[in-house]
C-alpha cells in the first residue's frame, strides 16, 4: 500500500523518491562572484533563495553553488567527504539534525566562532561546530473544508480520540512521513517516541485508521489541500506556510510541539571556510533571520499568533543524545516497531 501510494505520488509529481543514496535533487547558482561557496542543503531552493540572494548582494565577490539533497543522501555524501572519498562542500545545511550531530561527533566539522554564533541558546549550538539557524514546528494539518471545526484535534489526545471514535471515516485518510524514506520524518517520529506515553497509542491509532506513511512534505500538503487526506501528522510547519494552500488548517499540538532547528555545519575539508562562516553570520543576523522568518523558516514567536504555551515548545536540541536516534540497534528496533504498525494496516 505504501509503495503503491508512493509510486502513484511519484508518477503524479515527477519526483524521484525512495532513492536515498541518489545525488542532489536540484541545484542553483546564486550570485556571480569569483569565490564559489558550495552549499549542500535539504532545503528547497525556492525557500532559501531570498536569503542567499541577499547574502551575495552584500558579498558580491562570492557566489553560491547551491545543491539540494535528500537528507539521507546528504548524510552519506558528508560521511564520504569526511573520510576524504568525495570532494567536500563548504557548508552543509540540513534539517536532519541527528545526522548533523553524528557528523560533528565524528569530527567532520570545523570550529567557527563569532558574536552571532555565541549569542545562540545552547540548544541551538554544539561545540562551536553546529548551529541551529531556523525554528520550525512539527504541526498537524487538516483539510478545513472536510473536517468539521469541532472535530479538529488541538492536541495529540484529541487526535487519538478522533482516531478511536471514528476509525471508519478516517480510514486511509491520515498521512504522515515515511520514516524510512525521510530522515526528517524519522527524526520527528523518534522524538515523539521519547514522549513515550502518546507515541505507542499514536502508532496504534495509525494502524486502526490505516494511516498512510508517505514521503515528502509537498505531496502531503497537496493531498490534504485536495482532500485526499483529511489530516496529516508531523508535517514541517515551514513547508505548509510556504505552500500556503487554501482549505488547510494548521495545528500546533498544545500538549507539546516539536521545534526543529536546521543544522548548519562547516565541514573539516571545506575549501572556503571563511565564506561559509560569513554566510552563517548572515543567516543569524537580524536581516537574515527576518528573511528566514518571511520564508516561514522561523516560526513567529509572538504568543498571540501561535497560541502555544512556551512550556509546550519542545526544541530538538543539538546535542549528543540525538546520536541515539542514529544508533544501529535503536533505529532497527524503531523501524521494526513502525513497520509492524503500518504492516498491520496493509494486511487486512
Amino acid at each position, binding site marked *: 500500500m505504501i509503495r503503491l501510494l508512493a509510486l502513484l505520488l511519484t508518477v503524479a509529481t515527477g519526483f524521484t523518491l525512495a532513492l536515498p543514496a541518489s545525488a542532489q535533487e536540484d541545484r542553483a547558482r546564486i550570485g556571480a562572484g569569483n569565490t564559489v561557496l558550495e552549499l549542500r542543503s535539504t532545503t528547497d531552493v525556492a525557500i532559501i533563495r531570498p536569503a542567499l540572494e541577499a547574502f551575495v548582494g552584500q558579498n558580491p565577490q562570492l557566489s553560491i553553488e547551491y545543491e539540494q539533497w535528500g537528507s539521507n543522501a546528504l548524510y552519506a555524501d558528508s560521511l564520504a567527504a569526511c573520510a576524504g572519498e568525495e570532494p567536500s562542500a563548504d557548508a552543509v545545511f540540513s534539517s536532519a539534525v541527528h545526522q548533523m550531530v553524528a557528523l560533528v*561527533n565524528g*569530527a567532520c566539522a570545523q570550529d567557527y566562532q563569532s558574536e552571532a554564533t555565541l549569542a545562540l541558546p545552547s540548544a541551538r549550538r554544539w*561545540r562551536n561546530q553546529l548551529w541551529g539557524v531556523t525554528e520550525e514546528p512539527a504541526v498537524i494539518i487538516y483539510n478545513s473544508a472536510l473536517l468539521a471545526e469541532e472535530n479538529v484535534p488541538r492536541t495529540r489526545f484529541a487526535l487519538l480520540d478522533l482516531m478511536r471514535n471514528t476509525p471508519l471515516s478516517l480510514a486511509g485518510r491520515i498521512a504522515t512521513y515515511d520514516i524510512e524514506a525521510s530522515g526528517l520524518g524519522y527524526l520527528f517520529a523518534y522524538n515523539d517516541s521519547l514522549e513515550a506515553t502518546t507515541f505507542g497509542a499514536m502508532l496504534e491509532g495509525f494502524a486502526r485508521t490505516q494511516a498512510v506513511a508517505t514521503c515528502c512534505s509537498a505531496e502531503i500538503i497537496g493531498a490534504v489541500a485536495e482532500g485526499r487526506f483529511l489530516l496529516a501528522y508531523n508535517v514541517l510547519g515551514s513547508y505548509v506556510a510556504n505552500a500556503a494552500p487554501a482549505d488547510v488548517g494548521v495545528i500546533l499540538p498544545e500538549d507539546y510541539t516539536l521545534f526543529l532547528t536546521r543544522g548548519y555545519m562547516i565541514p573539516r575539508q571545506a575549501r572556503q571556510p571563511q565564506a561559509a562562516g560569513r554566510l552563517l553570520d548572515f543567516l543569524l543576523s537580524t536581516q537574515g533571520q527576518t528573511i528566514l522568518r518571511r520564508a516561514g523558516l522561523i516560526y513567529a514567536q509572538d504568543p498571540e499568533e501561535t497560541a502555544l504555551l512556551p512550556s509546550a515548545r519542545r526544541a530538538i536540541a543539538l546535542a549528543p543524545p540525538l546520536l*541515539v536516534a542514529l*544508533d544501529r*540497534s535503536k533505529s532497527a528496533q524503531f523501524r521494526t516497531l513502525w513497520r509492524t504498525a503500518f504492516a498491520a494496516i496493509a494486511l487486512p
Partner: protein
Amino acid sequence: MAERIAVHPQGRSLLTRVLRAVILLLLVGGVLAAATSWFSGRRAARESYDRLLLGAASDIAESIRIQNGEAMVDLPVSAFELLAQAPDDRVSYAVRGPDESLITGFDDAPRPPTERPRLTGPRFFDATMQGEKARFVEISRRFAERDFSGEVRVTVGQTLRARDAMTAQLMLEAVLPMGLAGIALLVASVLIIRSAMRPLEAIADGLATRDPYDLTPMPTENVPREVAVILEAMNRFMARLDRQFDAMRNLISDSAHQLRTPVAAIRVQAETALDAEDDACRDAALDRLVRRTRSLGTLLDQMLSRALVIHRNDSAPRQRLDLREVALDIVDSRDHEAIAPGIEVSLVIGEDAVEVLADAFSLTEAGRNLLSNALKHGAPPVRIGADRDGGEARLWVEDAGPGLPPELDGRLGERFQRSAASREDSAGIGLSIVTAVAEAFDGRIEARRGAEGFRISLVLPAAEPET
C-alpha cells in the same frame, strides 16, 4: 685606582635584593602551587567525569537484553544525557558481543590496551577519538541464558574538553587568590623595606653633606637598634680618629715647643765652643754641649715613647698581662744602670699573678719612666714591684727620697701639662706618659709618702683571673 673602582660597581640596593628574593620566592611558590593545583584539579576532573562515563556505560549495559538468542540494546537516551553533562565533548560508544562482534555503536571505539580477562569491574583507559585525546571506560555484563551465554562489553568514551576546562578552572581558582596575595606581599614588602630604610637614607644623607673634618658623633636617637649599632661603631671610630688627631697635634706642638729650647742651647754652646779663646773654655763649652746633646737625646726618646704610647692606647688590642712580668722586664733590661750606675734596684713581687688587661709596651714604658724618675730625682734604695689589692692592680716604684715636688703633686690626676715638660730632663714628660697610660686603661696614678719613702703607683683595674 679609578679602574679598580669601575670594576667593582656599587652593590645593589637592599630594596632590590629583598625584592629579588621575594619575587624569586613567589615565582617558585607560584610554580609549585600551580603544579600542585593542576595535578589535584586534573584528578578531581578525572574522577568526576569518569563517574559520568561509568554511569552512561552502566545505563547502556542495563539496557541489554537477550532476544531470540541475540543481545539487543535499547540504547537509553539517559546515558547520553549523562554524557552531555560535558556539553562540548564528542562521544563514542560500542556494545560488543562475546565474539567481539559489534552489536551496536561505533566500530572504531577502542578496546582497553591489554586484555585482562579475569578482571571484573570498570576499566578506564586513555585512547584517541578521531585523533583527539579521549577517555574511555569499558564494563562487561555476563549473560547465562539458555540461548545466549557470555560477556557483552560496553565501551563508552568522551573527549577531554570538559575535563580540561574543569582542571583549568580549579587551577585558576586555586592560583588566582595566591597570585593576588603574592602581589599584595610584593607591595607590602616594598613599603616595609622603604620605611625600614628611611633611617639609613637619613644617615647616608647626613654623611654625604657632612664636612669631612667634622668628627663629632652622629645623632643616634630614633634610630633602629640594628642601625644604631653601626652608628655607634662609627661614632667610636670617629672619636678615636679625633683623639689621634689631637694626639698628633699635641705631639707636633709639644715637639716644637720642647725642642726649640734645647736646640737653641746646643747652638749657643757650639758657638761658645767655636768662639772660645782658650782650651779650657772650649773644653768646658764642649762638655756642656755633650751634656746638652745627651739630654736632648733622652728627651727625644721620651717624646717618641710618649707618642707611641698614646698612639698604641687607641690602636693596640688589650691583652691579659701579669704586672709582675712587666716589673721583671723593666729590671731585666738594665736600663737603670745607664741612667744611674751604682744604684741597686730591687724587685719586690709576690707569688700571685697580678693580671690586667692592657698593652705590654705601654705598661713597660710607663714603668720604665716611673723607675727612671725615681733614679734621677729620688734617693736609693729604689724598689720596683707589683701587687694586687682587691679589684686593683698596682705597678709601683719606691725610693727613699722626698717625692714629687709639691706643685706637681697636686696635678697628678690631671692631663699632662705641656709646661711641666718644658724643662728638659724633668720628671714631667715621664709622668705624662704614665698619665696617658693610666687614662687609656681606666686607671690612675697614686703617690704616697710613707715610712719607707715615696711610692708612686700606676693603679689599673685587675683582670678577673681566668678560670
